[in-house]
């Protein structure tokens, strides 16, 4: 087998496993955990378009997530509009917001950008918490919105069991990974990367770094908002402190950095490590030794960063490539 | 025995190797020039001597002691002082404070006042500018501060990285005159320059560095006559 075929075979194997998993893993608990894992991998991959390729550290993506969640929920609950439509509209709104916030902030350097996005995210939360009605829309301030689980079905993006959610978020994840893959190979990806590492050099080559970053931001916020709508339909309850929280913005960034920012598989790897650590340590220690699970989480963050500052993808891609090479050689 | 002896070093920036199997010697009291084009590895070489980078292979010794694994502050304490490319002044500090920080190392810090007088003696302009922020000075003055700051460290071996960079010709002459004075007072000087004519004319010996390798070495006058040097660097 050639190297290319090996890679294809490997990819097919992974796809078979992830698509077949619900057939073996019948427990809704684990499906629920997996749905959230994929959701976070999806969010982080979307974040990566800005945070990874454009070389800045946005810490306010929860605002876009919130825009998506609120748009689809308000439209669905109060006007009966299908969440699929709300999802796209939320994406568009988030994308406009993203460009508006990106215009002034992309001029900033490192820490300023990070802090500005934190303030943007928190400011968004404060606004939602303070506003009960936005024109004809009831967003209910700090009390959040419930989605009555009445009309189950694909049209309403609402199901009684976990499997449909699992497949929807899986497809979304694969789609966003594909998008990233193509962007990373496109001119835009190249420019973004160049602009992230050597902004002056890129600029001198005539690359419009600012515009590239804005395009990335628009895409990233659009994709993030889609996940917000999905999450709202999955959990059927949203409120500002859960969908527009700093914790969420941070966790997305953590997953990216732990996995390896700027790489395509990084977010997935990061989610694969951090989500189980966070879930299982809470399950096993959360009740007996309050806080221990967050100590473990914190320790994992510290240790991975000390030993693998480039993230998990670095040794794993090396191992993967090594394996491919070995198989490749053996088959010849 | 050579004052500074570099033997067969390889140096890389990340995955990119910049210096290949390089050896050179500097004897006490000499002025040695390293010349070469952009990207030849000159700055990398100086950074390696200063301990900002460490060689993957080979060794560097100073007065017989190996220094290639030492951190920069220890190397400064031994008396090797670099005046970095682009001056790298502490822009938001006064000229005086820049000089004081220059004398931070163990050998110099007890003689700050005396050293400062010596520096002001050599570079009287700096005394006038004493309380001005370094960033408000002109390019030539900034280079003076950089040199003064280097002298504050009481160097045994002073390394200058492109001191003429970005300066008007008249200022360049000033700078080289100052370097000559420093050498005449007994400080060994290792000079990295693109301005080959000036630097070789005040040096004792020279090395030509190309693509991370020493291509030619010899006495300064001989190098000035060398045909390769002439065509490649002197534009003749």
């Amino acid at each position, binding site marked *: 087998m050639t190297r290319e075929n090996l890679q294809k075979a490997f990819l097919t194997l992974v796809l078979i496993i992830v698509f077949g998993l619900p057939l073996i893993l019948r427990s809704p*608990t684990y499906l629920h955990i997996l749905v959230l894992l994929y959701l976070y991998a999806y969010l982080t991959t979307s974040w990566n378009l800005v945070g990874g390729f454009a070389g800045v550290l946005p810490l306010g993506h929860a605002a876009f997530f919130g825009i998506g969640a609120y748009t689809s929920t308000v439209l669905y609950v109060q006007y009966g509009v299908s969440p699929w439509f709300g999802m796209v509209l939320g994406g568009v709104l988030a994308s406009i917001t993203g460009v508006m916030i990106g215009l002034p902030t992309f001029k900033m350097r490192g820490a300023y950008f990070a802090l500005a996005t934190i303030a943007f995210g928190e400011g968004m939360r404060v606004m939602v918490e303070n506003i009960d009605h936005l024109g004809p829309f009831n967003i209910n301030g700090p009390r959040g919105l419930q989605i009555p689980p009445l009309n189950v079905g694909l049209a309403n993006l609402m199901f009684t069991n976990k499997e449909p959610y699992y497949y929807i978020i899986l497809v979304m994840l694969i789609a966003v990974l594909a998008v990233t893959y193509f962007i990373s190979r496109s001119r835009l990806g190249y420019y973004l990367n160049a602009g992230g590492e050597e902004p002056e050099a890129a600029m001198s080559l005539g690359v419009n770094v600012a515009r590239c970053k804005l395009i990335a931001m628009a895409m990233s916020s659009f994709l993030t908002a889609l996940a917000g709508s999905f999450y709202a339909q999955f959990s059927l309850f949203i409120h500002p402190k859960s969908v527009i929280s700093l914790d969420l913005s941070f966790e997305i960034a953590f997953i990216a950095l732990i996995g390896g920012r700027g790489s395509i598989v990084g977010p997935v790897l990061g989610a694969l490590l951090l989500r*189980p650590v966070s879930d299982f340590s809470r399950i096993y220690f959360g009740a007996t030794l309050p806080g221990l699970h967050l100590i473990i989480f914190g320790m994992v963050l510290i240790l991975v960063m000390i030993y693998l500052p480039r993230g998990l993808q670095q040794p794993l891609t090396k191992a993967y490539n090594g394996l491919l090479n070995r198989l490749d050689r053996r088959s010849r | 025995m050579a004052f500074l002896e570099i033997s067969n070093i390889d140096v890389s920036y990340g995955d990119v190797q910049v210096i290949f199997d390089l050896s050179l010697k500097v004897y006490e009291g000499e002025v040695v020039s390293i010349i070469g084009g952009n990207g030849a590895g000159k700055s990398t070489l100086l950074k390696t001597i200063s301990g900002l980078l460490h060689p993957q292979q080979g060794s560097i010794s100073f007065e017989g002691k190996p220094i290639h694994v030492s951190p920069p502050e220890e190397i400064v304490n031994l008396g090797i002082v670099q005046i970095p490319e682009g001056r790298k002044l502490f822009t938001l500090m006064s000229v005086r404070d820049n000089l004081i920080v220059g004398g931070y190392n163990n050998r110099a810090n007890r003689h700050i006042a005396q050293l400062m007088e010596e520096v002001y003696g050599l570079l009287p302009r700096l005394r006038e500018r004493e309380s001005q922020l370094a960033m408000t000075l002109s390019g030539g003055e900034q280079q003076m501060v950089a040199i003064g700051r280097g002298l504050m460290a009481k160097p045994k071996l002073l390394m200058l990285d492109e001191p003429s960079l970005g300066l008007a010709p008249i200022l360049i002459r000033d700078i080289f005159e100052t370097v000559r004075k420093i050498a005449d007072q007994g400080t060994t000087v290792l000079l990295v320059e693109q301005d080959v004519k000036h630097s070789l004319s005040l040096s004792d010996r020279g090395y030509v560095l190309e693509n991370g390798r020493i291509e030619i070495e010899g006495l300064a006058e001989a190098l000035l006559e060398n045909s390769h040097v002439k065509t490649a660097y002197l534009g003749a």
Partner: protein
Amino acid sequence: MKKPIKEIGVCSAVLWVLTMALGAGSVCLAQDKVVKVGNIIPLSGPSASVGQQGKNAREMAVEEINAAGGIKSLGGAKLVMLYTDSESKPEKGVAEAERFINTEKVHVLTGCWNSAVTYPTTAVAERYGIPFIVPVSVADKITEQGFKTVFRIAAKDSWWTRDQFAFLRDMEKEFNAKLEKIAFVYENGDWGKGFAEQWKELAKKGDYKVVLDEPYPSTATDLSPIVQKIKRANPDVLLLVSNAADAILLTNTLADYRVKLKAIIGSGGGHADPSFLQAAGKNAQYLFDIVEWETDVNKPGAKEANEKFKSRYGYNLAGESVDAYLAMYVLADAMERAASLDPVKIREALATTNLGSGRGMIVGYDAVEFDKTGQNKHASLVMVQINDIGKGMERITVWPKNARRAGYQPVFPMP
């Protein structure tokens, strides 16, 4: 760099194996005949304090029930408690409910204190038909979602606000003092907003003049601007909804700025937190608070239960922990009658609960009986006043009058 990578790999592998082994272990346990109770409460994060109290109260009740022979109709089956930390986050509550129901196969769920966590979590229980006992999340909505499996022990917020105003009326009559101007100050969350909306209605009905209606962020680091606002609005009565940190800060700041009020009425929560009395000390004197229960309640067993609790955990039972304590007895009673681990039967038994006596009934009201929505019909509230009558600051029941501590004369209006 090679070695550390290996270490990390080994570490994470060990972690995985460990968690999986633990997971397998907990599944094995489920074979004995036990009643598994899943409790979702905040044990870390901003509400950790109340979560911990609820956990302690549950633990004490379950120990008592099991020591007394467990569920006799199930052959002495023991109650087995499973706890999990919601961190006050809805998504964690939902995930944990899923896990408790599907993986741990719990028979009953309880929780979650934060109303924002309780809504979506009860929806999960409803979907699987697992009974969910809510000791204290007070938002009306929780029992008004049309769910069949949700049972709330505590009063809902419309009753809390109703009783706060009834209390005010009664006190005005009793002490012949007319209070007119009223101020609302509350944390800007679903709890505070819920109360404030009902206060507004009640104030209108009761002919009070609302001089201030002020939400504040419960993460505020300085509450003196709010206190100044209160001072300048110059109300007679101040109604509060606060979490612990802000309740303490607000009380101390009110005292600092010498704000003269005729009555301050809290709404449990932060004001009922055991740390509150310790941290606010003398500044809390004469403050009224509405609670479900107080240590001086005139009920057999109440005093003993509190003493036992205090000697074990170092602080008094509070209204909210008593609800958790009672919830376990309500559950035991229902299990006894259900004589089955079938959730449908348990739900039916819970729905027909009429518990009027027994060790758990140390609450002020007569019985626990759920209406169609799952709300405890009898749940009632008492008002306490914080005062020092010789043994340091303590909480003294003053209202309703028939529950008032013998010999105590409430101080009203505040001097």
